[in-house]
């Protein structure tokens, strides 16, 4: 049981920088989700932790030990691969026992651990089968079991749910989270799916283009994104953005952008031009809520009805904004509409660096 630390870690493939200056700490027992688009370096970071990639610069620590030059087998980590990587010609039992046998764990202990894992993951009936005879969900659980059985210091998971269908994915998400909370093993979990990150992680690390953009709890990352990228990446439907010129006005500021001209109260310390971030729930139809800034006119482009709520895509002079409407909507594409912005929910970012302005 140990924490994990990345200290100034770089990874270069020739002239390509996959990871740059990564400083990340995962506390003992925590489930840290590293999330980002493809090419963000998240998988590379995980693989460096596993010992499957060399480290160009910096240090990786498991517990207090610097493991840069330590072979994977000596690191006492267990990994769940995206394609499960089950040993195809061995039974499920042998798959689970493989790592333990390699480490000369006594037979009785192996049997006990496999049994426990099988119970936890409900794969007891599959122990004699071969991987080829398993469904995707079953194979995934066996892959989890293989890691569980090892009782390592750290669990590493590389997009384990990506190959499952949507329903199974949602189901298994919860199971993995519960499992981790039971065993309380430090877990580093990589995914490109921000919904997965938000629902599973104790904390989330958002990476983009090799750089760590922000680390924090799901709430922190959602409510207080550190920059434009994180703001636009986290949250579904995604945050909308528009450029605005800022002028001081009585008791607040006036935001003027393409098709937008609103007064927002009580916002000081904003530079002359900003990028305004609007989450769907920060935009409401004019007349439905009080205390919102507006009106902002626009044309409906799409209506995404999800039953309990509806997201209306509105075109405002070329920019697209998503507007939240509770329940069903009467709007149709092509309708003209007016909506307003909830002042407290707006986020502001510097146009040049993308950094958040508090």
């Amino acid at each position, binding site marked *: 049981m140990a924490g994990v630390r990345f200290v100034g870690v770089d990874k270069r493939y020739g002239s390509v920088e996959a990871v740059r200056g990564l400083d990340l700490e995962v506390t003992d027992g925590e489930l840290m989700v590293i999330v980002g688009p493809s090419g963000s370096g998240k998988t590379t970071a995980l693989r460096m932790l*596993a*010992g*499957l990639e060399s480290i160009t610069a910096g240090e990786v620590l498991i517990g207090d030990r610097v493991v840069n030059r330590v*072979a*994977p*087998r000596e690191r006492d*980590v*267990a*990994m769940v*691969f*995206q*394609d499960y*990587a089950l*040993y*195809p*010609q061995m039974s499920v039992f042998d798959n689970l026992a*493989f*790592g333990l046998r*390699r*480490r000369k764990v006594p037979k009785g202990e192996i049997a006990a651990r496999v049994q426990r894992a099988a119970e936890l993951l409900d794969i007891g009936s599959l122990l004699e089968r071969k991987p080829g005879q398993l469904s995707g969900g079953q194979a995934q659980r066996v892959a989890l079991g*293989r890691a569980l059985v*090892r009782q390592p210091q750290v669990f590493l998971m590389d997009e384990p749910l990506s190959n499952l269908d949507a329903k199974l994915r949602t189901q298994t998400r919860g199971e993995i989270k519960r499992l981790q909370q039971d065993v309380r093993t430090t877990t580093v979990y990589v995914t490109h799916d921000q919904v997965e990150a938000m629902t599973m992680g104790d904390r989330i690390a958002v990476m983009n283009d090799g750089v760590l953009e922000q680390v924090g709890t799901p709430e922190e990352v959602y409510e207080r994104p550190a920059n434009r990228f994180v703001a636009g990446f986290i949250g579904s439907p995604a945050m909308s953005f528009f450029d605005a010129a800022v002028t001081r006005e009585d008791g607040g500021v006036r935001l003027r952008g393409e098709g937008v001209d609103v007064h927002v109260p009580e916002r000081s310390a904003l530079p002359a031009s900003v990028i305004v971030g609007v989450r769907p729930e920060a935009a409401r139809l004019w007349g439905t809520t009080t205390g919102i800034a507006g009106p902002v006119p626009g044309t409906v482009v799409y209506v995404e009805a999800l039953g309990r709520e509806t997201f209306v895509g509105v075109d405002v002079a070329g920019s697209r904004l998503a507007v939240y409407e509770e329940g069903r909507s009467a709007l149709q594409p092509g309708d003209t509409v007016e909506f307003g912005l909830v002042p407290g929910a707006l986020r502001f970012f510097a146009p040049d660096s993308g950094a958040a302005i508090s």
Partner: protein
Amino acid sequence: MTSRRELTLTYVVLGAFSLFALAPVVGIVLTALQDPDGLAAFGSFNGLHPSNFADAWRDGNFGPYLRSSVIVMVVVVAVASVLSVLAGYAFGMMRFRGSQVLFYVVLLGLMIPTEAIVVPLYYDYRDAGLTDTYWALILPQIGTSVAFGTFWMRAFFRTVPRSLVEAARIDGASSWFTLWRVVLPLARPAVLTMMLLLSMWTWNEFLLALVMVTDEGLRTAPLGLSFFQGRNQTDLTLLAAGAVIVATPIVLLYVFLQRHFIRGMLSGAVKG
């Protein structure tokens, strides 16, 4: 949609060429079964006389020849297969300095004809006293077989998902253990096909045997047939029977395992 006419044309053409391929083979089998005392003509049918095979076997002394061929084939294929699996594993799944260059050398080696090396092989082996031994036939063919086998197994190993090997590595398996217990079970079809192809080429090898072997007892089957032909220019049925004897083992292997032969050859050839 293809017209009925086109489909018929295709079948006709396929059928015609199939006939072309089969006719000589059927012909020689029929010839081998002809009445030995009757008027012999290639491919004509005048009854079944399987006793011709026994006669040819005796007369042509094919017993020892086949045995020689089997010995050489088994040793070459066994040794070359193991060596090729090891080398293919290294080329296909490991990264090390110079692997590209070394592999190109192997690739070029695939194209070196026996004709180019048979001359120095003979004279060097003669000086070493190795001519007229099984080694003279086995060693060079191990060399050429290993070139193909390495190329073949490398192509296979490259299709094994990296994650499988990585999982084994994290689980603590050595590269040796990973090869034999994790990866090789997957390789069975590829290894089988390789062994079939090597068997076929080794069995059918003629020039090397012709050059290296003068001792009658060591002759391989194709060489034996060549001498048999020299003595039986006129006795068609006997000669045909001898030819059938020499070709049959591999043809039988082919008929029963042709899926492996063909699919293997095709996939390997294009992957290269």
